[in-house]
């Protein structure tokens, strides 16, 4: 499958950010070490978004990042994706594709062509992009919606197309920014199950930003809890539970309470 081939190529061709000297072996997974990120504000004062943040993600691992609004979660993902550079610290990551907080689908393209945008961006022809995106549509439960315009899709369907697009970028790392925050509770639960299933079939390293603690323990191998701004990782919780997981599993409920306590203690 073309997607797999491409990620294999990407792995060897990269490391980015404050990477060690050129020619060094590519880093597997993600290493964020004592990273600080500051923004200048209109008043001239400095806003420290991230302070001394450390987070490691092993290849193939799914790590959730939870934290209060404004604590720098999106900033962290943009750093991982190479869209921003740290002001201090060291950050190495395999190439990462973003799934943005808003779906950002293009209104003039069909669902299938929206998903294919990641391929078109690299110069793949329209026909080839459709041929590659088609089978993924089947797999993601989007079959039958290929020709639908985003305006006619439900919120849940739009998020699926958006994920399909980021998957098709063929990067080994996926950076998901609150993918289900804007959905109603029922659709969200449905899409959480769907995402768990989809990620199980992919061998990707995933950083999932969310403010939903239940979502975090349901989907990930580890939960990193961030402090309010300036953001740091204050607690990490292993979620060593078999999949598929149930919301009502007492072990999961207990982990959820632990994560909430870590969040609450800092909020």
């Amino acid at each position, binding site marked *: 499958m073309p997607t797999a081939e491409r990620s294999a190529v990407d792995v060897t061709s990269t490391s980015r950010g404050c990477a060690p000297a050129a020619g060094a072996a590519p880093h597997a997974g993600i290493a964020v070490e004592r990273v600080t990120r500051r923004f200048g504000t209109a008043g001239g004062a400095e806003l420290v978004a991230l302070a001394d943040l450390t987070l490691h993600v092993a290849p193939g691992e799914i790590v959730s990042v939870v934290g209060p609004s404004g604590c720098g979660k999106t900033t962290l993902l943009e750093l991982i*994706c190479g869209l921003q550079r740290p002001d201090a610290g060291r950050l190495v990551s395999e190439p990462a*594709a*973003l799934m943005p907080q808003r779906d950002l689908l*293009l*209104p*003039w393209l069909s669902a299938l062509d929206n998903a294919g*945008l990641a391929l078109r*961006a*690299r110069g793949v022809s329209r026909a080839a992009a459709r041929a590659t995106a088609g089978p993924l549509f089947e797999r993601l439960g989007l079959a039958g919606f290929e020709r639908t315009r985003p305006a006619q899709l439900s919120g849940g369907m739009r998020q699926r197309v958006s994920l399909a697009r980021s998957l098709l970028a063929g990067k080994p790392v996926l950076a998901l920014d609150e993918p289900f925050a804007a959905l109603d509770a029922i659709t969200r639960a449905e899409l959480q199950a769907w995402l768990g299933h989809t990620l199980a079939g992919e061998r990707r390293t995933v950083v999932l930003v969310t403010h939903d603690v239940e979502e975090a323990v349901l989907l990930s191998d580890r939960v990193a809890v961030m402090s309010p701004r300036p953001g740091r990782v204050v607690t990490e919780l292993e979620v060593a539970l078999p999949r598929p997981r149930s919301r009502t599993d007492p072990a999961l409920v207990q982990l959820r309470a632990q994560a909430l306590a870590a969040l609450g203690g800092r909020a």
Partner: protein
Amino acid sequence: MLPPALALALLLGIWELYVDLGGVNPAILPAPHAIARALYTDRQTLWSNFLTTAREIVLGIAVGVATALVCAVAIHFSSVARRALYPLLVASQAVPVPILAPVLIIWLGFGILPKLLVIALVAFFPLVVTTLAALDAVDPDLLKLMRTFDAARGRTFRHVELPGALPGLFTGAKLAAVFAVIGAVFAEQTGASSGLGYLLSITTSNYEFAETWAAVAILSAFAMALFALLAVVERRALPWAYGGAR
């Protein structure tokens, strides 16, 4: 369609009554019925002059669209071009076109070229401004997303920015179509031997105001037709820009 027709009928009715009841000398402001008669009796002259002007307008808009697109893209891509060209663009709109037109004709001769330039000049500005605004309004998060997809600048432009800017281009084109009609009248004031603008200057100097108004009516109708045509093309070409349309 009905409300504008009613509004027009009402306006013409008031006009007709005003002139008929002696509010103004009909030799100065002819009544609508006199204009209608002129439209009919002079139909051949009006039609042949209309063809000249229509051709200038359509070609002038085409030149305006082409140069405006090039300019907007250059300004969008290069901050140097933005700083260098934007003030000139604004300044170009302060050029008094009625004065410029004769100068261009003395310079470039009596052919169609100076007329195209005048029309393109007036059509150019709304096109550049709206297209540029639409290009600049593209969501920065979308541009970031394209960067994580390793998109070259040109591909981001082709797949994201340009299609997103098309509604802006159409808005500009609709304004430009109307401005171009006025531009054509200025362009034909000197050095023209045909065209509705030429006819306007002849008939006004001869105090043939019914004929003048007949030419004005045709120009207005043409501006409306161009505007409506562009609106139809826009709806067909960009159904996504209209909520609910499929």
